[in-house]
């Protein structure tokens, strides 16, 4: 899997009103001003389309930071 900086670029691209380079691996995504439960669906669709991996509700609940989410995706690819 590509490194986390590419992953972050894709996430930033999906969030319309966010300045690029706002997100880093330690960002707690639920604390972003733009966060809402619908953003969860956007992340799931993005990950499904880009990496062909399914992140379920429990996976998402257990993730706090962007790094956590990246790790989940990476572990599912392997």
């Amino acid at each position, binding site marked *: 899997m590509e490194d986390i900086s590419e992953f972050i670029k894709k996430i930033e691209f999906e969030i319309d009103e966010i300045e690029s380079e706002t997100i880093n691996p330690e960002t707690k995504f639920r604390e972003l001003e733009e966060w809402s439960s619908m*953003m969860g669906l956007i992340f799931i*669709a993005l990950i499904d389309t880009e990496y062909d991996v399914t992140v379920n509700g429990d996976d998402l609940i257990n993730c706090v930071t962007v790094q956590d989410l990246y790790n989940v995706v990476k572990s599912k690819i392997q």
Partner: protein
Amino acid sequence: MGLTSINNINIRAIAACVPKKEESNFDYELLTESEKKLLVKTTGIEKRRVARDGLCTSDMCLESAEQIIKEFNINKEEIDVLIFVSQTLDYFLPATSIILQDRLGLSKNTVAFDIVLGCSGYVYGLSVISGLMSNGNFKKGLLLVGDKSTFSLSKEDKSTYPLFGDVGTATYIEYDPNASPIDFNLQSDGSGYEAIIIPDGGTRSPWTEETDKVIEIEKGVKRNKRNLWLDGIEVFNFSLREAAPNIRELLEYNNTTTDDYDYFVFHQANKLMNESIRKKLKLPAEKVPYSLQDYGNTSSGSIPLTMVTQLGGKIENKSNIILSAFGVGLSWGAAAIKNANIKCLPLIEMD
């Protein structure tokens, strides 16, 4: 295997009826301005039709059926089969289809029964009526499909209220030995039954004093156990996982490819989900029509409503069409219709 092929069935016409009353998600007070924008961007749903008190699914289906009967000048005595597919029935019992037999003035020889399915209901209903009529004993049939989903929604639940709209549709089916076979791939997974559920009111969990107690799940999400409960993420994942492989299996079964089809009509769930499925199947956008921007998720009626509002006049000359539906149950399926000449009648609105 849920794969099957049914001969001798000609889908002649589709009609749809929606309530006149329209609500816009931009007017929904529980959402902030940025949430509204995100909702419309993600779900694609801007407006919905909401049936007033007293206007039932069966009333809208009846109007649609009457429109077809008039347009094709059908002798009511000749209608052999009437199937009503809905999760919003007139009564617990008797079956709504039987009441509709009388209201439509059909003969007492009519075979009439209900099928209780939601999102997947149109594809399932089509398979049942086709199977029933395939051997030629029954020549003409009506498939009435729709839901008044707004009946069970909590207005204070921002995770469901802005999504659903109401519709009642009718599809006219004829026995025709020259028709191309219709192929189906039907599936179900009851382990996901809680993903979309109205918890109380059946025999498993009857109404009690607890039923009407409002539960606050999170800010902006208040509902009781008469209301529809929706686990958005689970349903989303289910649809992403199952819809595309279900269609691929069907195409393998009937030896066709996506290029052989003119249109892919998906259950109108939400735009992000449907677009993800479209991309998985590598379908061009112009082959995938949408009605959800104007009508929301219209449950089992979403496929015929989309055909009526988006494909009028476009599928009357040997069109090949895939229908794909997925949702509550969990239940899902697809149908491949070849050489279709389907007349989509103008949309009806009802006060």
